[in-house]
């Protein structure tokens, strides 16, 4: 990214109030997404990938969340310090979001029409008739057949794949500059997943929007994103272009994760595992947070928190021993 990114998250630390005080869910997170680019954020549960993404629009419950450090730069604004009223203009307008479970993110007692028309009326000030016409167009755009009839249905009448199409229609209603997609296909069957990813790809091209795709599925990232951020236990451990990350992973965690994915095209005797368990966020680990599970950990890994270092060509990794050794095992 030579030019200024569309949005950049800088040194973000988010804390949640737990039973035993404030717990850091993510710490010192940096990433940026360029105009028209698709950035993938991958990680396992507790990695902080969703926490980071929800922070962009400050969608966490305010009463138990603290944005302890950082900035979210969007144009010349910092979304973290933007007043509520101004933030609301950005949400659903310039930056839109879709979630994993389209059933619980659609309102069950409102028709599809009501829910698609809302952002159009809110952000674009359209009349009821104009908004309804636009809503039907949007449903056609996300390939819902018989849109003019379907629009008056309630969400429970639709299949999971259809509901996700409706969510996407709502999200792109105001032609956003950035779409944040949090596990958009995780709840869907694989043949439906490929339809939804294809739809997102077409819409991205058509609208020219950027996409931040949050997923645990490395295959989805490999097929859909241009660049990837890998998160582990609340921190970014590696950032690279998609080809670089999958061909030459630098961080031992990234490498382990890629190897642990069962291969569809090959028979193996046993799967490759990463030993140990994913640490609980409240657990304090000195040094590198992956060190308790890392086969290559040296003494300094256990005591010094590693920095995210540029290994060249926009490939960053948080692993000093690997970087010193030239990166590739």
């Amino acid at each position, binding site marked *: 990214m030579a030019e200024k990114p569309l949005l950049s998250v800088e040194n973000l630390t988010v804390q949640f109030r737990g039973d035993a005080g404030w717990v850091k869910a993510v710490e010192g997170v940096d990433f940026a997404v360029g105009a028209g680019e698709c950035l993938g954020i991958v990680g*396992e*549960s507790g990695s902080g990938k969703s926490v980071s993404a929800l922070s962009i629009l400050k969608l966490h419950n305010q009463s138990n969340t603290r944005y302890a450090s950082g900035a979210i730069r969007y144009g010349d604004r910092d979304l973290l310090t933007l007043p509520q009223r101004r933030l609301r203009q950005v949400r659903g307008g310039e930056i839109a979001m879709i979630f994993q479970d389209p059933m619980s993110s659609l309102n069950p007692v409102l028709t599809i029409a009501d829910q698609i028309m809302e952002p159009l009326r809110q952000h674009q000030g359209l009349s009821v008739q104009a908004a309804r016409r636009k809503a039907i167009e949007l449903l056609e755009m996300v390939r819902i057949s018989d849109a003019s009839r379907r629009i008056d249905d309630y969400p429970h009448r639709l*299949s*999971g*794949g*259809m509901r996700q199409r409706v969510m996407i229609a709502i999200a792109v209603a105001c032609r956003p500059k950035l779409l944040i997609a949090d596990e958009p296909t995780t709840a869907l*069957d*694989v*043949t*439906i*997943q*490929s*339809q939804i*990813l*294809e*739809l997102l*790809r077409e819409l991205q091209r058509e609208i020219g929007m950027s996409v931040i795709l949050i997923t*645990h*599925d*490395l*295959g*989805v990232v*490999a*097929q*859909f994103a241009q660049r990837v951020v890998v998160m582990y236990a609340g921190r970014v451990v590696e950032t690279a272009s998609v080809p670089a990350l*999958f061909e030459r992973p630098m961080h031992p965690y990234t490498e*382990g*994760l*890629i190897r*642990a*994915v*069962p*291969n*569809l*095209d090959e*028979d*193996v005797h*046993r*799967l*490759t*595992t*990463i030993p140990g*368990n*994913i640490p609980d966020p409240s657990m304090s680990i000195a040094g590198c947070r992956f060190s308790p599970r890392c086969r290559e950990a040296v003494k300094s890994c256990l005591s010094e928190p590693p920095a995210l270092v540029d290994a060249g060509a926009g490939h960053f990794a948080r692993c000093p021993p690997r970087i010193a050794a030239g990166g590739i095992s």
Partner: protein
Amino acid sequence: MSVAPIVVVRDLVKTFAARGALLRAVDGVSFDVRQGETLGLVGESGSGKSTTGRILVGLEAATSGSINLFGQEISSTRGRVTPGAVRRRLQFVFQDPQNSLNPRMRAQDAIAEPLDVAGGWSRSGRNDRVRELLEMVGLPRSCGDRFPHEFSGGQRQRIGIARALALKPDFVICDEPVSSLDVSMQAQIVNLLLDLQERLGLSYLFIAHDLAVVRSISARVAVMYAGGIVEIAPKRELYTSPRHPYTQALLAAVPRITSNRAHTAVITGELPSQIDTVAGCTFHPRCPLAFERCRAEKPKLREIAPGHLAACHLQNTPA
């Protein structure tokens, strides 16, 4: 194959009444599982794979069809009446260890519950068996007095497996045992199931939607669609030369890490609601190769190569 099957399922049908109509969840399913082998049962949601597993273990009653377990005919249509001696040899591992373990029960009691129900165990024999089982599934012998919430998801699934193994079963039905786990945990559990199979000579019916996971553990794989098996074959053959258009579409739809991006939606449409029965082949509305006969006549599952069966009119003649 010289090894006799220990599970023989024939023409299994399960219908549910739904809004005044009849929903055919399982529609004439037949398969065998042999001693010491894993049969993978793969399909998307609504394919009937879980219902099939639940009927086998007696959690649901079949509408019709026959089940033979370990050489004994089971009354599949009455459910829950499987003789204890047969039932003991058959166990179940659930998808979600979060919901399938009682949160108020210590790990050791959850694991020992089948022993307590079966009876005939002394206190010390029971405790020894629990410690042995904990070790067998890779947990510390000392962690038995902890509660489910004190374990990670992967560890809870280990407890679920220990519990299923308590009565030394011969056949274990695993219903999506790793689908709620993270990738790094998933691999550990799959390897554990493989190790236990080797050590104890277990047979598995491994039900899952993830084709790659199924490949990593199965010897043979059956693909289900809309209540029926559309293809069944030895693993390598199914993955390298799938013959049913649905199996082909399913394999093509999985986003891979390695291949180039040539990502297009492989098939259009969605699974039919099983209330509006589709005439002919259940897959024909989505099949790119469908022709007239597919719309009129339901294809039978027939052998197209040794041990390789497919239900498709295009595969009429042995290759």
